[in-house]
């Protein structure tokens, strides 16, 4: 009870819980799930953009894209390390991912179909991720919060690069402008889904907020993202594919329509357009690497005993 009240007090002061501190089992479990899901999202998220590295249309864009996908691997690495401070190994988490027992963000189950998607993912997907993640820099668990600070800094950079790619393409040919519009049409709704279901359908939010693992509700963050994105879309010269999108003077926010939550649920259940492909890719890479990891372990053992 002493431990528990110390924990509660730390949370109440908005101070950080550190790995050596006592924490409730539910807190630990929720954190592991959330950090792992976040780490998995970074790793799976390498695929949709990685799909275009070999086809990047200029060497400058190739370098930018390769570096970005590399950063995602880095984010995965920090986040798995944060999770490891809670007593689970990266290998365990990876196995949870490839067996489908842990999730990753459904956005990565959408295919990338043109080079403009690299830009849209930077602008909209990273943009939505930042809205979700900036509050997590103040999350109550120390290693997670510190990882998020690094991640957010790099994500903002990626978002600007994505937006800049789209801006450049909009200055190009008619086909390129059409490509950008088509890409934005495809990614707008999935980006809105990244904030999770409407608050009314999100039963875990309250507990997560109480624990300081989550700082805002899904709908609050979604609104923030829409408000941020509309002027950016205007500056870019693209139309967002939502007929209900309109400034509401009274609320001082944009009103907007609802994404197709049925499609969202299909993605969550594993039936999205690329779920099977993403997991199969990850599983193959992991299995192909097994003999390498085994060799590294065997070598380390030999070295240690030599």
């Amino acid at each position, binding site marked *: 009870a002493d431990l528990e009240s110390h924990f509660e007090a730390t949370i109440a002061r908005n101070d950080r819980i550190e790995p050596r501190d006592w924490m409730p089992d539910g807190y630990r479990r929720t954190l592991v799930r959330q950090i792992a899901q976040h780490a998995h999202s970074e*790793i799976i998220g390498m695929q949709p953009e990685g799909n275009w590295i070999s086809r990047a249309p200029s060497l400058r864009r190739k370098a930018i894209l390769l570096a970005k996908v590399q950063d995602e691997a880095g984010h995965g690495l920090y986040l798995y390390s944060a999770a490891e401070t809670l007593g689970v190994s990266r290998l365990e988490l990876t196995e949870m991912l490839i067996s489908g027992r842990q999730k990753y963000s459904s956005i990565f189950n959408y295919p990338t179909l043109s080079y403009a998607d690299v830009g849209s993912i930077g602008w909209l997907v990273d943009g939505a991720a930042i809205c979700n993640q900036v509050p997590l820099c103040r999350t109550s668990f120390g290693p997670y919060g510190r990882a998020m600070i690094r991640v957010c800094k790099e994500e903002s950079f990626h978002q600007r690069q994505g937006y800049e790619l789209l801006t450049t393409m909009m200055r190009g040919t008619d086909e390129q402008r059409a490509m950008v519009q088509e890409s934005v049409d495809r990614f707008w709704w999935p980006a809105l889904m990244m904030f999770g279901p409407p608050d009314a359908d999100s039963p875990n939010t309250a507990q997560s907020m109480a624990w300081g693992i989550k700082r805002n509700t899904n709908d609050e963050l979604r609104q923030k993202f829409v408000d941020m994105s509309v002027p950016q879309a205007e500056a870019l010269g693209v139309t967002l594919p939502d007929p209900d999108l309109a400034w509401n003077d009274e609320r001082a926010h944009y009103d907007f329509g609802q994404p197709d939550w049925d499609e969202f649920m299909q993605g969550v259940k594993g039936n999205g357009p690329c779920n099977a492909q993403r997991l199969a890719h990850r599983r193959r890479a992991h299995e192909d690497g097994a003999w390498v990891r085994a060799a590294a372990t065997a070598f380390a053992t030999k070295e240690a005993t030599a």
Partner: protein
Amino acid sequence: APTLAAYALMLGDDSLVMSHRIAEWTSNAPDLEDDIALSNIALDLLGQSRLLLARAAKADDSVVPALPEGSPAPPEDALAFFREAHEFRNVRFAEVVNGDFAEATVRVLLFSVWRLAVWERLRASTDHVLSAVAVKGVKELTYHRDYAARWFVTLAQGTEESRSRLLAALDELWPLWPELFDTHPVEAAAAASGVGVDPATVREAAEAVLDQVLTAADVPRPEVARRSGVLGRTGRDGMHGEALSRMLAEMQSVARAHPRGQW
């Protein structure tokens, strides 16, 4: 200047093609650390190739292919995306289709040992751009070599499977190793004029470094003959294997579908 351009193109194409192959490892490596390391190597090589292709174009713009009308592609992109396979001057070693992680290890090791031996001398190039590229490149390549050498020893001494895969990869790439030290007339001319290095002159040094790694790993030098070219011509002459045109089909697809595009 034609010699300088042709020479810079050779080095730039090596880096470009090798970078493309290594980048194919992204999201496919055995562990996150290796994914990051391989992306890093690919990025370094890509950076080298951009400077070298730009240098080639500046030294002699006749090496830059004619672009489709209205194309705003800068010279580095014209060279990367609008040449056909036979116009590339990379060594065949760089273009080989990827294999397993042992193959990646051997590939990076042999390439960077060779390249380091050449670029250590290239730092003294009378061309300031090449010399600057080499100064930076030597640091990068040293990291690449050390990364690959560490894995080379680990795989050689790890498990039976890892050792046999490593030996197989070495046998597979070895036939293209001697070609790295062939002297092309352009290289001879570049060396004579002080802008470049004749690779034949660094063979001994490179072999000595490689032997150190082989010894540390307890791996014998392979006994596989060199791969012949076609009518005596190889990569430096624009004579490649079947892999390169397939690689370019993919690499150039977006740029060529939108020749007037802004990127």
